[in-house]
């Protein structure tokens, strides 16, 4: 097994998803099975093959760096779990 409980804990922290201690073992097994399966890609020689980030039927356009829409703070804050005086609010970050 290449992916163990400690690795699950590490990537869960990176992904900001709380994974309780008692769920890590089962999750490690599941993720390890998926990773073991995708490793068959190593059978393919990809030396000198460029990676494809997008299907690239076209080049991405540039646009002018201007505001096209604005002044909608109230609309946007309507969906916020917590907001005050035109800002999103979060738990205290600085002591």
């Amino acid at each position, binding site marked *: 097994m290449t992916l163990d409980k400690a690795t699950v804990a590490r*990537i869960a922290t990176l992904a900001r*998803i709380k994974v309780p201690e008692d769920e890590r073992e089962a999750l490690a097994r599941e993720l390890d099975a998926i990773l073991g399966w995708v490793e068959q890609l190593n059978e393919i020689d990809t030396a000198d093959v460029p990676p494809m980030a997008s299907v690239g039927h076209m080049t991405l356009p540039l646009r002018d760096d201007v505001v096209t829409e604005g002044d909608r703070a109230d609309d946007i804050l309507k969906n916020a779990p917590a907001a005050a005086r035109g800002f999103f609010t979060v738990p205290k970050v600085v002591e």
Partner: protein
Amino acid sequence: MSGGLTDLTLAAARQGLKRREFSAVELTEAHISAVERVRPLNAFVTETPESALAAARESDARLARGEARPLEGLPIAIKDLFCTEGIRTTAGSRILDGFKPPYESTVTANLWAAGAVGLGKLNMDEFAMGSSNITSHFGPVVSPWQAKGGSNRQFVPGGSSGGSAAVVSARVALAATGTDTGGSIRQPASFCGIVGFKPTYGRCSRWGIVAFASSLDQAGPMTRNVADAAAMLGVMAGHDPKDSTSAPLPVPDFEAALTGDVRGLRVGIPREYRVDNMPPEIDRLWELGIEWLRDAGAEPVEISLPLTRYALPTYYIIAPAEASANLARYDGVRFGLRVPGATLDEMYENTRAAGFGAEVKRRVLIGTYVLSAGYYDAYYIKAQRVRTLIARDFDRAFERVDVILTPTTPSAAFAIGEKLDDPLAMYLNDVFTVPASLAGLPAISVPAGLSEDGLPLGLHLIGRAFDEETVLRAAGVLETAAAFTARPSL
């Protein structure tokens, strides 16, 4: 009206409205009743009967003035992945709890501007991650189809656009939108006996569609026949400056492509799609499809797509990687669910633990892993290199053929509750649909027959980039030859 107003194609309903055989309000009321009747299928997350009737009244006024737009007064339903202004949009997830977008997706805006009437928002696999509709926070959608022999087993409608496939098949909406990342339009269309068309990547704007894997996601129509798919795609498609990957190309007259003439068309039959353990009934249907096209004057050509078996593992690196980045925005700060925590990090972790379901967590974690330091080259870049080779396979094939014919899925629909314990078995549903997604190519599923159990099976056509017209033309011929008339029991 025997058969009823809900049994019409888009084209027939359009004509009936124009000839004043019925009004848009009558047509909409009939569909609203159907929506209520099929509530046990759990296909809708949000019903919008009042705004539907308001839109229908507006359509009747326009029809009376002779100002009908292309989809005037036609009731359709929207996968709940498209943001709809002021109407709850969930993506099938708890984490978007209470989210009402302050804007409208480009595709739905195009549909409303063409006069379509929206019946509501359709259930789906959470964040479009699934092939069964069982990963939805709102519970599974039940297929309107039942197996022969009177057992009461409930089947999945496929996924992720399972609500869309179920309502179109059950005559609840004339058509529906879907989205397809690895097969999410085509696989449920196949399972429910309808047409599902994923156009070329870039044909429809992704703006306002909740993102899953941005290099793969593409919207498309789900309809009861090929002509309707052509008509609806014509309205959904088009360049949108708000999506930088949307193609700055004119939208062809897709309906005009349905000439019924495939004489001389070269149809590729990829030998690698004869996968191990494929049920004989799938193979037989494929042979039948080849025969139908040959009888119509097309020329079947055996081709090779050597990397076919590597498409799924490639997809299951790339899609989760992109998803882990796209889903980072669900942090309990700007919209949706927030679960309190003592610190900001703890609030994030609690929110995402409670808001995401098991399959979404699994994919976000896989994605995070393959993008993390030390694994990025070995997994993510490797997969992107294989993706290049898969796209090249198609380029090479399309030097010799005009379109490629395969089965849509390796089996008919499975029962709700099956394949739950093994994510890998579930992923195999997309074995035939994922390669075209990785290459960004247009592909359609056409209902072609029934399994021995009496469940629908589809055939799948893949075309060159931005050559939806050839795909539609060949699909029209398959449809005529297949003469699929089976109906779901509900």
